[in-house]
Structure formats: structure tokens, C-alpha cells
């Protein structure tokens, strides 16, 4: 419970918090507020429903793994659609960012990307945004994601690899089946994949369970993990509950939910 103050005169601070872990970085207000032109340079298919879109953004000021950006498209009548997307690429990719987008049924922005967009097209974006889910690569990180929730976590894995970081990192990723596993060819020993509908021969079908989380926590570094959970709200609720039940402190769980 937050402490109460009895003074009616000198309350100068917000209540102490249990959850509100500080943001990991100072966020650049200017970068967050400025729309920049981004040119689509490449489209890579990841799964039947997801593709990666690579953009050249000459004025990009850099980001940390886990951050997101806001992207906007404009129709001829002036109508604007804007959405938040997690950044998939690591920071060391000068002047470029990559997004991996699911093709959502009826999605006006994802629909444009998956059916109309081609290299050379220009969109606008602003960011990076929010320091909360960011991971600078300093503390041991336990990453749990499902579906396209793996996107910001993959930025962390790529960062870990690109910089040859030795800080412990583990990824638990859930997908419906092997063909739906985004970035399948990039995973290494840090990753455990869980399949909920169909699995390769010899691999059990099932969802992320207490046993997976218990194993990762038991295998944790001294001082424990910073946990990063990303996915649909249902998955985020499930995974964060497993973490809490396994003893992970609530104030060391960061959640990004895809609405």
C-alpha cells in the first residue's frame, strides 16, 4: 500500500511505488515529437501472416531494444491513420529501422503494408517512444513473447548478439506452429520455442507453462532476471501470472500488451 502522509502542507513527492520501475533511459522529447520521412527499402516475408518492413530513416537518432515508434499513413482526402509498432531491429543499424507486422484482418495500416506497399514508398514516423520497455543490455533479461509479441524481444536478442554481450539473456517464445514462428532461423541456444497448435515431430504441443518459467527462474543469474513480457493481452496476463507465481518480483516485470 502506498504510504500516507499526515501533513496537509508539505507533500512534495508522489507515493512510493511497488511496481513503477523507472524507465530505462531518458527519452528524447524532440525525437518523440518530430515526424520524419521513412523510405521503405525492403520487405522480407517471415511467416504466412507476418513480414518485416525495412525503412531508411536518415534522421533517426537511435533507439534502445524494446522501444516503439508511431507510424502514420495519409489518404488523398487528408485522412490519417497512425499506429504504434515495436522496433524489431537492433540499435546498431545506422539510419534504418525494421518493423515486423502481422497482417490483421481488416487492418487498415497492416493491410496497406501487406497488400500495397513496395520498396520506394514513403511513410512518416516519430520516435523512438517510451523508455519503459527498453533494455540497454545491462541487466540479465528473461524475455517471454508470443506471436508478434516477439518483435521487441528480438531487437534485444539481436542487440545482445551484435554487441557480443555476456550478460545472461533467455527467450521463451510461443507460436501456433513452426510455420508461424517469426524469426525462426535466427534463434540460438538462448531460445526455447513453445508451440500451441502444432509442433515439429518429437516436440510437445502446449502453451507456456509453469514448468518453463520455473526452469528459467531456477537457472537464473545471481540477483535474478529483469522480465520482459510481450504479446496479446491474454498471453501477457497468463505469462505475467506465471512469473509472479514462480517468485519473480512484480516490480521486475515489464509488460507490453498488444491490444
Amino acid at each position, binding site marked *: 500500500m502506498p504510504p500516507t502522509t499526515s501533513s496537509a502542507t508539505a507533500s*512534495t513527492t508522489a507515493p512510493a*511505488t511497488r511496481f*513503477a520501475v523507472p524507465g530505462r533511459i531518458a527519452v528524447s522529447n524532440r525525437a518523440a515529437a518530430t515526424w520524419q520521412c521513412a523510405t521503405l527499402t525492403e520487405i522480407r516475408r517471415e511467416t504466412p501472416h507476418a513480414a518485416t518492413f525495412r525503412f531508411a530513416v536518415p534522421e533517426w537518432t537511435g533507439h534502445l531494444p524494446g522501444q516503439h515508434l508511431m507510424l502514420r499513413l*495519409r489518404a488523398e482526402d487528408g*485522412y490519417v491513420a497512425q499506429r504504434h509498432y515495436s522496433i524489431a531491429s537492433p540499435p546498431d543499424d545506422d539510419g534504418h529501422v525494421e518493423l515486423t507486422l502481422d497482417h490483421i484482418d481488416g487492418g487498415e495500416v497492416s493491410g496497406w503494408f501487406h497488400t500495397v506497399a513496395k520498396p520506394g514508398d514513403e511513410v512518416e514516423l516519430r520516435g523512438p517512444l517510451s523508455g519503459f520497455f527498453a533494455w540497454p543490455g545491462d541487466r540479465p533479461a528473461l524475455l517471454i513473447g508470443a506471436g508478434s509479441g516477439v518483435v521487441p524481444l528480438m531487437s534485444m536478442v539481436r542487440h545482445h548478439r551484435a554487441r557480443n554481450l555476456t550478460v545472461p539473456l533467455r527467450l521463451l517464445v510461443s507460436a501456433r506452429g513452426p510455420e508461424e514462428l517469426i524469426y525462426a532461423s535466427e534463434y540460438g541456444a538462448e531460445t526455447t520455442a513453445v508451440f500451441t497448435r502444432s509442433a515439429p515431430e518429437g516436440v510437445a504441443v502446449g502453451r507456456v507453462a509453469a514448468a518453463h518459467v520455473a526452469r528459467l527462474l531456477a537457472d537464473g543469474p545471481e540477483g535474478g532476471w529483469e522480465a520482459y513480457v510481450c504479446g496479446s493481452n491474454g498471453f501477457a496476463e497468463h505469462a505475467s501470472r506465471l512469473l509472479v507465481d514462480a517468485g519473480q518480483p512484480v516490480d521486475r516485470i515489464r509488460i507490453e500488451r498488444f491490444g
Partner: protein
Amino acid sequence: MNVTRGFAGRPRVRNDGLPPGQYDARDDWPVLSAEVTPDLAPAQWTFTVDGLVAEERTWTWDEAHALPPSAYEGDIHCVTSWSKFGVRFAGVSLDAFLDLARPTAEATHAVAYSHTGYTTNLPLADLTGGRAWIVWEYGDRPLPAEHGGPARLIVPRLYFWKSAKWIAGIRLLDHDEPGFWEQNGYHHRGNPWEEQRYSGD
């Protein structure tokens, strides 16, 4: 900005209730909280008004329910760009709590804080005069935990991150003090009609 080649957007009718850059989420109500959803029973829930008030007050669930009921029917807007029209929340106007605690003349701002420790800052003027509620029902049903149940603050004139879930209290201050998202790059006020999304907007 330039027109995006080949982008028409969804079929739409002009909607004057939609702030700039927002879309109608229709039946969806995305959940956007950065923390673990707490398991908070109504019997454990309390709501406190403290700081620059004549009388610091704490209400239990039953005590809060004994205050005059008040409902909000209207629209809500999330900074992630969805808006939701014609929602109904029922609870008690924040005015009812503030009238009993009596903010002092120096009080200009407030920090709303949650039982989870989440915080968000608000000008006092955005919380008074029928502009804010403590609510426990959504569409005549108990507010779901993932949406802030058993009770949350709603301040529908501002982006919804200001409407703290699992509300534990309001602390009145004589200055503005950024809360959780505001320290993480979001705008201090968050007025959807002025598109105050991020610091610097």
C-alpha cells in the same frame, strides 16, 4: 506530409467526435497496462484523498458506494490512437470525494496513484466540476480487473493513461509532478483534442 501511395484507409463517415489521429475501436477495448494485473478484492480496496486538503480522508468500498451515485456516458480516447464511443461507467463523481476532503487554496495539481504503484499527474481543474469519476461498473457490469477493477479513475477529457486503474488515491499538490508515463516520454497533460501525446507535442 505527402499522401501515402495507394492508401485509402477504411471506409468511414465523418465523425466529429473523433480527435485528431484517432480511430474508432468499435467493440474492441484494448488493455494497455505495463504492470501485472493485481488481484485486488473489493474488501481490500480503499480510496484516499490526501496532500493539500483540509481533511485527509480514506473510503472503503462500502463507504465509497454510500456516496451519491454518478455515471459517465460518452467517449474515451487512448494515446495509442483508438477511441471508443458511447461507453458507460458508473461510480461516484470525484467531486463527491473532494467536497468532503476540501482541497486547500494552494492545491493546483494532483497525482493519482494506484494500488499497484502506478502514478499519473493531473491539473486539479481536470478533476473537478464533473470531469472525473471513480467507477466500478462498465456497461452495468463490474469493471473487469484488467480494465482496472474493482475501481478506477476515469478522466474522459484526457488520454486514458490519465485514468489510473486500480485507483488507490489522489494526492493534491501545489505543483505539477510527472507520473509514470510522463517520466517515460508522454505529455504532462494529454489532451486528445490538442493531440498532446508525447513530451514536446
